[in-house]
């Protein structure tokens, strides 16, 4: 039986897709939202330290399904299959809410220079560093809308580096934990400008959801009380409440359907019973996250688009990047651990820009509470990896170690890319994503610099020993994946236009982290939200009842 035609088919119910669904459904469009994963609830919160979205040694708690979704990774060791729980896979999540169901919920606005990286720093060797075609001022009203409508707590008034904002955050910060109290005076003594981390986490009851109860294990887990804000507990329910939107879970989209003229007519997907379905629509909006959005476009072949939809000039899947996360840890001679979650609480933006000889930088903040098993990664290089000495160190240091880390803005690389593999297919027979490429060496230089600042902060705070952790040169992707469908004015060097519409086809949009030209020195989600509000607004302005104006 044919499915009822709708105005808009949105593929992917994550950060971008959730916002778009609500905006279009509220404007009266009929919407179908397809999600390959499940819709979990607070009751699925198992607080399992070995199986969650951050520590995946026994699997991902919130998708994708381990055995059905291989990818191919090409690196120095050759080309091989990787599974979702493995590090080279570059997973984010697969469920209603996407990454926002289980994320850390840091809620950052990018800075003005983050949209003008090329004009600010010039060309960087080996990198496709470029300006966004839009600026901070284009996004500002939508940042504000995201902060208010979804709900952000914190106090960024001491952040003298932030771009102009019209209003403060709608909720006060959570009360400071012990690490905050240790790090605040130290940062001030260093002449830096510490402030309370902005978070998509209720510090007080907000929009009908409860306040955070400060539990130990937050990032990577479901929030038991719905105090943490994702699209699953805000915009997606709001889209459903309009009566204009239907969410279909367990639906793996295979390709976008195109008519003879190369216009999109809908999408083909496998329903939860593995039956192939065709949903027709006036518009198709791709919101699958940076890796899977590129894969879906590349798997959409047509006489007019033999190399994949939107890929006339070979830019789809290019510039895959995320953030490089250098860290420093400090051992104190007293307990710094107070068991008050979520842990991350204080940040500085003193080193996002203006670092001599460096094209950018990154924000620094204290880390979320480490689970005992996660602490294994924090053990310094001079401690033996096993035996009595290792156990002694863990026992002494577990509650006395503070970690500071931060996302370094990466220099995008043309050869860091998503392709579709010619041989390997997933459970449904769909060609899988094939990932290859490396970080730009300059990104690692910046990482070494900010790690030094993190270490200096810990030393000033009184750490008796400190050490650094600098990531290697391998491909960056994972939770902060971005860049694979670059936004730009020139169809020869980008995939979508300013409105996030494909240069190639009038009625296909990409609205998620894929369109980020660069990814800021911050966690990306608030920018994904803001851009989704902005792109929805632009789409609705062009909407003509059954099509968008060309």
């Amino acid at each position, binding site marked *: 039986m044919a499915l009822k035609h709708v105005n808009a088919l949105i593929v992917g119910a994550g950060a971008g897709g959730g916002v778009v669904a609500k905006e279009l459904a509220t404007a009266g469009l009929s919407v179908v939202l397809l999600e390959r994963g499940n819709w979990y609830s607070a009751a699925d919160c*198992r*607080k*399992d*330290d*070995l199986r969650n979205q951050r520590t*995946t*040694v*026994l*699997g991902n708690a919130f998708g994708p399904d*381990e055995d059905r979704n*291989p990818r*191919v*990774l090409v690196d120095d*060791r*050759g*080309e*091989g*299959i*990787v*599974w979702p*729980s*493995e*590090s*080279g896979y570059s997973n984010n999540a697969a469920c209603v809410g996407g990454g926002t169901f289980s994320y850390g919920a840091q809620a950052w606005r990018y800075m003005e220079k983050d949209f003008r990286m090329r004009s600010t720093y010039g060309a960087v060797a080996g990198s496709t560093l470029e300006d966004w075609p839009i600026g901070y001022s284009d996004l500002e009203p939508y940042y504000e809308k995201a902060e208010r409508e979804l709900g952000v707590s914190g106090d960024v008034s001491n952040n003298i580096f932030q771009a102009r904002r019209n209003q403060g955050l709608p909720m006060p910060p959570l009360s400071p934990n012990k690490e905050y109290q240790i790090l605040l005076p130290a940062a001030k003594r260093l002449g830096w400008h510490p402030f309370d981390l902005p978070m998509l986490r209720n510090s007080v009851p907000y929009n009908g959801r409860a306040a955070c*109860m*400060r*539990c*130990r*294990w937050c990032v990577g887990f479901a929030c*038991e009380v719905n105090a943490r804000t994702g699209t699953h507990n805000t915009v997606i329910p709001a889209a459903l409440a309009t009566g204009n939107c239907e969410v279909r879970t367990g639906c793996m989209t295979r390709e976008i359907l195109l008519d003879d003229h190369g216009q999109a007519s809908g999408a083909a997907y496998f329903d939860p019973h593995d039956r192939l379905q065709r949903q027709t629509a006036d518009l198709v909006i791709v919101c699958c996250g940076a890796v899977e959005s590129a894969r879906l476009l590349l798997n959409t072949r047509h006489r007019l688009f033999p190399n994949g939809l939107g890929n006339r000039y070979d830019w789809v899947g290019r510039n895959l990047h995320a953030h490089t996360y250098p860290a420093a840890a400090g051992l104190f001679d007293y307990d710094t651990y107070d*068991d008050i979650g979520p842990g991350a609480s204080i940040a500085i933006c003193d080193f996002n820009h203006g670092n001599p000889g460096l094209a950018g930088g990154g924000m620094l903040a204290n880390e979320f509470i480490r689970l*005992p*098993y996660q*602490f*294994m990664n924090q053990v310094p290089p001079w401690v033996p*990896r*096993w*035996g*009595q000495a*290792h*156990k002694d160190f*863990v*026992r002494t240091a*577990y*509650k006395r170690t503070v970690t500071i880390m931060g996302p370094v803005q990466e220099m995008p690389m043309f050869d860091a890319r998503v392709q579709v593999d010619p*041989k*390997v297919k997933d459970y449904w027979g769909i060609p899988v994503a094939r990932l290859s490429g490396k970080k730009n060496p300059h990104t690692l230089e910046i990482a070494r610099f900010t790690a030094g600042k993190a270490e200096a902060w810990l030393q000033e705070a009184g750490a008796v020993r400190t050490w650094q952790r600098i990531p290697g040169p391998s491909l960056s992707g994972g939770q902060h994946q971005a860049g694979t469908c670059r936004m730009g004015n020139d169809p020869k060097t980008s995939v979508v236009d300013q409105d996030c519409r494909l240069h190639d086809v009038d009625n296909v949009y990409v609205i998620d982290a894929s369109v980020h030209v660069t990814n800021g020195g911050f966690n990306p989600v608030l920018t994904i939200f803001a851009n989704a509000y902005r792109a929805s607004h632009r789409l609705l302005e062009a909407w003509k009842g059954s099509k968008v104006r060309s």
Partner: protein
Amino acid sequence: MPNSRRQFLGAGLSAAVAGSAISCGASNGASPWRFFTAEEGRTVDAICDRIIPADRDPGAKEARAVNYIDLQLTRPFKRYRKAYREGIAAVDAASRKKFGGRFVELPAGQQTEVLADIEKSSAAFFELILAHTRQGFYGDPRHGGNRNRVSWKMLGVPFPPIRGLERYDQPKVG
């Protein structure tokens, strides 16, 4: 995170399931374990004991890390079965060669020496069992290790893991 179950494409996709074809030691009826033979289980238990030894606090042996590993080898770790079967054999071979006896028969000091060799000669297996021992000691008891939450008690981590709520899966003793 160890990446050793990654299959290289030359070997073909069918390698994806090859690991699970390795039979379970328990099937011969003589082993108390699900995957390991009785002897393998003793060897793994002894390796865990060297990786996280008991002192004033229990170690990985008391935490039953071996039970964690054995249980997971019937679940997500199916792909590591071959690595374990071969790795355990390599540990015993190295013990015989160096000290003339099976690993479990050696005194602790000699076991440590053998493992230090294995760390270099069978690096992939060593990384695997190192990570799994840590998981079986520091991880949630519901997965078969960390019996009586011994490591969490050692670190002073309160239980249950979330304040005010106790309706999580409590560990099943096993």
